[in-house]
């Protein structure tokens, strides 16, 4: 493992760990707020039990998300000081708003967790809602900072020195909207299916049927709704990438040769040496159509980029395919749910079994999507401005950094998982 690889794996692992807790921390409070709202309106104590049950999960997961997020704010500088020296002032704005939102979230969660009986019930409910809103906002800000790395703007470089920085232009870069919509809806999807699956499992076991049914319905509604929305957003996002980062799009699709009526490959393994797709099923013209709404449109291939400026195609293509397959599958499951719920007016047992199986899929898709966008930007840390290798810290021994955080997070992940399992067995 070279220094650069070790630093990249450290960053990838820290982000991959944090993103799960961040996704939960910024969406799960809404689930809690809906249950809480229902309790305040109906006075049905089952909704109160449900609110408190979810609240405890949120408390634990938020804490892990908060500490791993703090690590990331340091790691940007610890691993990539060359990047932060340039980028800090330019993308500091979304980070400073993120800091504010995160702060509000931390205050609101304190108020909500410990504030039962200490304030007016609706003020208390509002505190819970603020946890969700500020968490959701902080997610958007962080993704806006990341999107700047994909489509940098709002600065000029004169003789290697950054001049005339425009932080607002940098924050509202061309990629911020589709990336943040895609991420936030993905978080709702993943957490929706995750929570619905857990409650479906206990429903099938006939435990606390009434509460689990209510919990399942709230979670599944969010999961199904966001899953129907996501393919549209994903399509919009891919069309933007086709224009903004053609090399990334080409890597998504394993598209080596620039061509009109470009084919879309289902599955397949890209071979970077021979520059062909192996074992894929081509659909002629489908890529041109999906990217530019025209089956004859020209799609730029990887051949337009020097070899040392291409992302590793296989990793990007495979993770992209995993994400798209899961996204399509979950959209199907979402449609099934609405069909059962609105038309058949009853949800059959087999659907609960499917829901249990779908439980981890959204999180797998988030990880796959994150790998797609990050590896798809390689070798750039700031697209077409700075390479990842130029940003690397001069500190030697990044391998130690990697293994240290690997073991720390594996340990923490295991502890968190075991605690949550005990909590779920106890409360649900």
């Amino acid at each position: 493992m070279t220094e650069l690889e070790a630093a990249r794996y450290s960053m990838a692992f820290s982000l991959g760990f944090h993103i799960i807790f961040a996704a939960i921390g910024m969406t799960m409070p809404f689930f809690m707020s809906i249950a809480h709202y229902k309790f305040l309106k109906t006075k049905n104590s089952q909704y109160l039990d449900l609110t408190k049950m979810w609240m405890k999960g949120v408390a634990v997961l938020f804490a892990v998300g908060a500490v791993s997020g703090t690590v990331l704010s340091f790691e940007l500088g610890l691993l990539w000081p060359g990047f932060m020296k340039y980028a800090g002032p330019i993308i500091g704005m979304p980070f400073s708003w993120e800091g504010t939102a995160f702060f509000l979230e931390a205050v609101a969660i304190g108020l909500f967790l410990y504030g039962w009986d200490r304030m007016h019930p609706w003020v208390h409910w509002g505190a819970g809602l603020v946890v969700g809103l500020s968490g959701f906002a902080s997610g958007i800000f962080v993704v806006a900072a990341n999107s700047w790395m994909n489509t940098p703007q709002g600065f000029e470089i004169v003789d290697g020195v950054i001049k005339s920085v425009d932080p607002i232009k940098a924050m509202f870069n061309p990629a911020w909207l589709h990336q943040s919509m895609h991420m936030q809806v993905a978080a709702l999807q993943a957490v929706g299916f995750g929570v619905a699956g857990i409650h479906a499992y206990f429903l099938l076991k006939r435990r606390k049927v009434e509460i689990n049914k209510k919990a399942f319905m709230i979670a599944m509604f969010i999961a199904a709704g966001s899953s129907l929305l996501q393919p549209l957003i994903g399509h919009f996002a891919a069309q933007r990438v086709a224009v903004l980062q053609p090399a990334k799009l080409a890597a998504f699709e394993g598209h080596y040769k620039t061509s009109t009526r470009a084919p879309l490959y289902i599955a397949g393994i890209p071979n970077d040496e021979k520059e062909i797709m192996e074992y894929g099923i081509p659909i002629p013209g489908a890529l041109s159509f999906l990217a530019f709404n025209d089956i004859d449109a020209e799609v730029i291939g990887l051949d337009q980029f020097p070899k040392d400026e291409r992302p590793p195609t296989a990793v990007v293509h495979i993770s992209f395919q995993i994400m798209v397959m899961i996204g399509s599958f979950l959209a199907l499951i979402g449609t099934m749910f609405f069909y059962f719920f609105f038309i058949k007016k009853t949800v059959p047992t087999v659907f609960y079994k499917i829901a249990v199986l779908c439980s981890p899929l959204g999180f797998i898709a988030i990880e796959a999507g994150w790998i797609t966008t990050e590896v798809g930007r390689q070798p750039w840390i700031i697209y077409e401005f700075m390479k990842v290798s130029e940003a690397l810290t001069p500190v030697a021994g990044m391998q130690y950094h990697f293994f240290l955080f690997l073991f720390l997070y594996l340990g923490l992940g295991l502890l968190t998982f075991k605690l949550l399992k005990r909590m779920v067995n106890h409360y649900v």
Partner: protein
Amino acid sequence: MYEISVLILLFFIAASIVLYVVLGGADYGAGIIELLPIGNSEIRKKQREIVNRAMGPVWEANHMWLVIIVVIFFMGFPVVFQNIMVSLHIPMVAVLIGIVARGSVFTFRHYEVELTPAREKNYTITFGLSSLWTSFWLGVSAASLFRGLISNQSLDFYSLYVAPWWGLFPISLGLFITSIFSFLASIFLVGETDEVAMKKYFVNRAWKTNLFVIGTGALVFLAASFEGYELVNRFFKNPMAIIAFLFANLSFFLLWFKLKKRKAFYTRLIAAAQVSFILVGWFAIHWPNALKIDGIYVSFFNSAAPQPVLNQLIIALLVGSCFIFPSLYFLIKTFKMKVKES
């Protein structure tokens, strides 16, 4: 205009550091004093409950100040941020490991559903050790900024990444910070219980940790002069630092007078003021510098980001303050001013 912008940012940095040290410090200290093998199991159990109740609602907010400090530095003072993150990589990583461990373990202990004695012990020890560890490394990092051993020109690993923070002075400042945090926590916790025995217990903790503060404080000065670090010199040439030092010391008498009467609010205020004075002294001695690289001081004024960046940062901080301070006030009002009623 540029200088005023930098001054405004320095105000925010100073305020955030003071708030982090006072509020976050009490939080770290709570972990440290839980670690001390004092008192019978009954008292220790009560102490855990008090710490859970007192810190539970506020610990996450207390640690946000650190994130704010980091953001101000990397947006407003990128060169300073970059140098700290490179030269102090090792102590920074140590701090992060501690932050991860203590934050999660504290929450786990609170929400654990099968709190067996063994599990509780593991949680408590991890919480305590990581609190001690983190505060120590925070002190070590702070000590390294002006020691003059941060170097961009050295060639070997040791002088680039170890020497800046390795030595008597950083170690003694690390010990000093852990003592201050434990002291702050003891003072804070006196007001968090209505039980006379527990109040007495925390007053006793405050006395003892106070002795540590004085001892390690003296050690800091000794170590500095032993290392040839011009802290003492600079200190006695700086009227602001001397005034701050005098205030910090004089207020001890006031503190113990109020503590004897167990006036929780005033003792907290005085303890917070003392720690603020120490920090003011520290800022004053090094004003207007951010750190020292290869023997040359780097001033905040010539290492700040371009004007448009500073403007945006100031706007963000001002707007952020309009949200953060009222909500923090509400948090404190809800949990810290109603203690007696519950």
